[in-house]
């Protein structure tokens, strides 16, 4: 139960990453645009004639500012769509459309209720907003997240629904936007009643955190840091950034909720002379930590490393520190000590709370879009000028934190003999890092198939991987069987750490995780993964799949003959099929009782119990479709052949009907192998799609090489 909860939270956390990834660019546009259209700044630097109102630069920067601003203004919509995409298991594009529709529907529902009950005047001041031109309740990012989560739940429940024949056009994925519309019309009405008391409550809570003042800031910083190992920090900080929990303030005549929104509203408001801490209290401390504090910790670890390993460990720590300083991505560094010395991490969390609190007290007001690295500091601190942000104070404060991290870490590491990088006993750990470095370098220069194969192997084989996603630094995977995960193998692929809670696995790689994820997905889609499913056999098979081939002559592609869930044939419950005794291909668990022709072909035979059909694609290339396992024992009952031996069929022609329920009850499995039975040494098979397949969708590709 706890593991399942963690799995869900992990998915929610990572689904935020897609919309959050837009923010640095939006922030760049808004930051540059507003900096160079702020008349106070311009007159301070004597640039009014050159760049003031009416000039071409002013025109350009105004456009930039507006284009960046619109993204922040419509973040709730982006969250609705982004969360739906992140949480949907399959057919994500449909979930995205349904989320956009539902978002409009929900707010229109609320809008109608407001109109019917006396208009906006009857409501609390600041509780309404214009959402995409719809007068609705101010729900902020919460509104979007509710829509995203709700739509994803509906989507995962209904995207394969089968409706009665007359309504079948509206079945499957088409049903998702329809049911979402109906549900969110009701949700809109309900929200009108539910949201108002919540608004009062959230405002009070925001007031409480905000009014606990500096202590609240301390707690925020500490809790956020402590949540990072669990990957739950996104869930925690977002309300503070985006909703009234993080404070509410009137900027340029409109009420703005959420610290990040306040900061950017102020950024866009040319009349502001010094940013308010209301917009930055949960941000500015990050600069102190990421640019100054953590590098201090890295230096301490470097100095504590054993002399023989300093050089090796130096590279690791230096790159981790630079990543933290420049981009504000800290996991590579934090994970280098988190697991071996939790005490250091706890102390780091206290330091973090102090950093946030001191920035708040000292009225240093640098906001951020993504994380507290130098890029954000330049845009929102240095460029905005010391008058508005007080960023120069970060330098002495940062120096103090650098020293504090360095000396405290160094003292504790030596005192308790923590096994931070370069201090491990024996050679084992160092080997691990060397191998990781080696792998990382190798992966860059060569094809990365080796790394993806190793990751898949560490996760218990391709068949064990349910879905793959990533956030800024970690690969997030849900597996079928958590016992099959081998953390040592995962670490050898260059990971800084591995976190496993039940079926949820997080592998921390650092910022290049995006590429690793893309490669892994590519690998899983390709036949290579299908050929190397069992961890134990992986190495052996990898060699077997690399025979010396001549030139690729041509490729034959066949579609899926059934509607259902496809997997490599090695996943067949029948050992004879799984061992490819009858040929290589896929196995499909059907959700409809119909076999259609996967390509143009001649029927070479229909087995007399009608449970298997042979197709001849061309001279010497044949495909066997075998419905279910041990179905020969049904003696033809539940099957009806629609073709006979010698018939010519076109792709999509119906070949065989079967009674799915009957077979489910009377055969050992409905899993149906689709095989090329005539594989020669110069032929290689690739599985093109695993998971949900529709009839006719490309399933298998046969590559034919020069013999």
């Amino acid at each position, binding site marked *: 139960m706890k593991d399942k909860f963690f799995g869900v939270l992990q998915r929610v956390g990572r689904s935020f990453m897609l919309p959050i990834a837009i923010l640095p660019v939006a922030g760049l546009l808004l930051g540059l645009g507003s900096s160079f259209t702020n008349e106070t700044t311009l007159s301070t630097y004597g640039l009014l004639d050159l760049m003031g109102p009416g000039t071409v630069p002013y025109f350009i920067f105004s456009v930039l500012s507006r284009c960046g601003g619109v993204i922040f203004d419509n973040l709730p919509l982006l969250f609705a769509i982004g969360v739906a995409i992140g949480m949907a298991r399959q057919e994500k594009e449909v979930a995205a459309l349904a989320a956009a529709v539902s978002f409009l529907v929900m707010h229109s529902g609320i809008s109608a209720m407001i109109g019917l009950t006396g208009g906006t005047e009857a409501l609390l001041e600041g509780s309404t907003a214009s959402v995409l031109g719809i007068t609705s309740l101010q729900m902020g990012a919460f509104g979007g997240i509710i829509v995203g989560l709700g739509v994803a739940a509906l989507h995962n429940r209904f995207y394969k629904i089968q409706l009665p024949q007359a309504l079948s056009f509206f079945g499957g994925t088409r049903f998702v936007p329809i049911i979402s519309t109906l549900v969110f019309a009701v949700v809109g009405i309900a929200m009108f009643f539910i949201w108002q008391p919540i608004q009062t409550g959230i405002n009070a809570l925001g007031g409480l955190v905000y009014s606990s003042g500096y202590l609240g800031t301390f707690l925020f910083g500490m809790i956020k840091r402590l949540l990072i190992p669990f990957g739950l920090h996104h869930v925690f900080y977002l309300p503070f950034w985006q909703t009234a929990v993080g404070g509410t303030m009137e900027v340029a005549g409109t009420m703005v909720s959420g610290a990040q929104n306040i900061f950017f509203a102020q950024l866009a408001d040319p009349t502001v002379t010094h940013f308010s801490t209301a917009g930055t209290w949960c941000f500015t401390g990050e600069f102190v930590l990421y640019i100054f504090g953590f590098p201090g910790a890295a230096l301490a670890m470097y100095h504590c490393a054993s002399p023989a390993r300093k050089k090796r460990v130096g590279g690791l720590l230096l790159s981790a520190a630079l990543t933290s300083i420049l981009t504000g991505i800290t996991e590579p560094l934090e994970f280098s000590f988190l697991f071996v010395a939790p005490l250091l991490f706890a102390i780091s969390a206290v330091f973090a709370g102090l950093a946030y609190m001191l920035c708040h007290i000292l009225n240093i007001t640098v906001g951020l879009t993504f994380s507290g690295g130098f890029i954000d500091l330049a845009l929102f601190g240095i460029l905005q000028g010391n008058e508005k942000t007080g960023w120069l104070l970060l330098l002495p404060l940062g120096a103090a934190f650098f020293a504090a991290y360095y000396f405290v870490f160094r003292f504790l590491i030596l005192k308790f003999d923590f096994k931070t990088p370069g201090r491990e006993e024996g050679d084992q750990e160092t080997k691990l890092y060397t191998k990781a470095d080696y792998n990382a370098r190798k992966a860059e220069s060569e094809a990365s198939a080796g790394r993806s194969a190793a990751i898949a192997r560490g996760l218990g084989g391709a068949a064990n991987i349910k879905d793959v996603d990533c956030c800024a630094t970690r690969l997030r995977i849900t597996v079928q069987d958590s016992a099959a995960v081998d953390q040592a193998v995962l670490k050898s692929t260059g990971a800084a750490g591995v976190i496993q809670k039940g079926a949820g696995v997080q592998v921390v790689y650092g910022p290049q995780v995006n590429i690793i994820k893309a490669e892994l997905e590519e690998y899983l889609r390709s036949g290579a993964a299908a050929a190397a499913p069992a961890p134990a056999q992986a190495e052996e098979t990898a060699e077997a799949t690399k025979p010396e081939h001549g030139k690729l002559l041509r490729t034959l592609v066949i579609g899926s003959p059934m509607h259902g869930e496809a997997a490599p044939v090695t996943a067949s419950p*029948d050992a*004879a099929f799984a061992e490819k*005794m*009858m*040929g290589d291909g896929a196995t499909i668990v059907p959700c409809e009782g119909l076999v259609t022709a996967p390509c143009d072909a001649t029927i*070479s*035979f229909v*087995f*007399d*119990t009608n449970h*298997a059909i*042979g197709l*001849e694609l061309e001279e010497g290339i*044949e495909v*066997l479709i*075998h419905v279910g396992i041990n179905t*020969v*024992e049904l003696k033809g009952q539940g099957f009806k052949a629609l073709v006979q*031996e010698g018939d010519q069929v076109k792709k999509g022609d119906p070949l065989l009907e079967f009674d799915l329920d009957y077979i489910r009850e009377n055969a050992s499995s409905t899993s149906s192998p689709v095989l090329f*039975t*005539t594989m020669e040494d110069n032929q290689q098979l690739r599985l093109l799609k695993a998971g949900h397949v529709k009839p006719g969708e490309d399933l298998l590709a046969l590559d034919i090489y020069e013999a």
Partner: protein
Amino acid sequence: MKSFVYVIKDPLGIHARPAGMLAKAAKPYADTPITVTKGDKTVKASQLMKLMSLGVKTGDEVTVAAEGPAEDEAIAAMEAFFKENL
């Protein structure tokens, strides 16, 4: 050429699994073609689909033949296979 006649005892005849096993058993004798004949239809034992298309059922009489350099060994292996599996 060597051959033998065999009456199928497996109640399900030559369906996918035994056909696959038979084709595999015939594979090592690449230069000694092995054939299976039922009635007037003759197929190569190494070809899974052709074997299935014979539609051999229990009680059917089939003729298995091998011709080539390793025919003695091949036919002995086939006889053993049929007795054990079919």
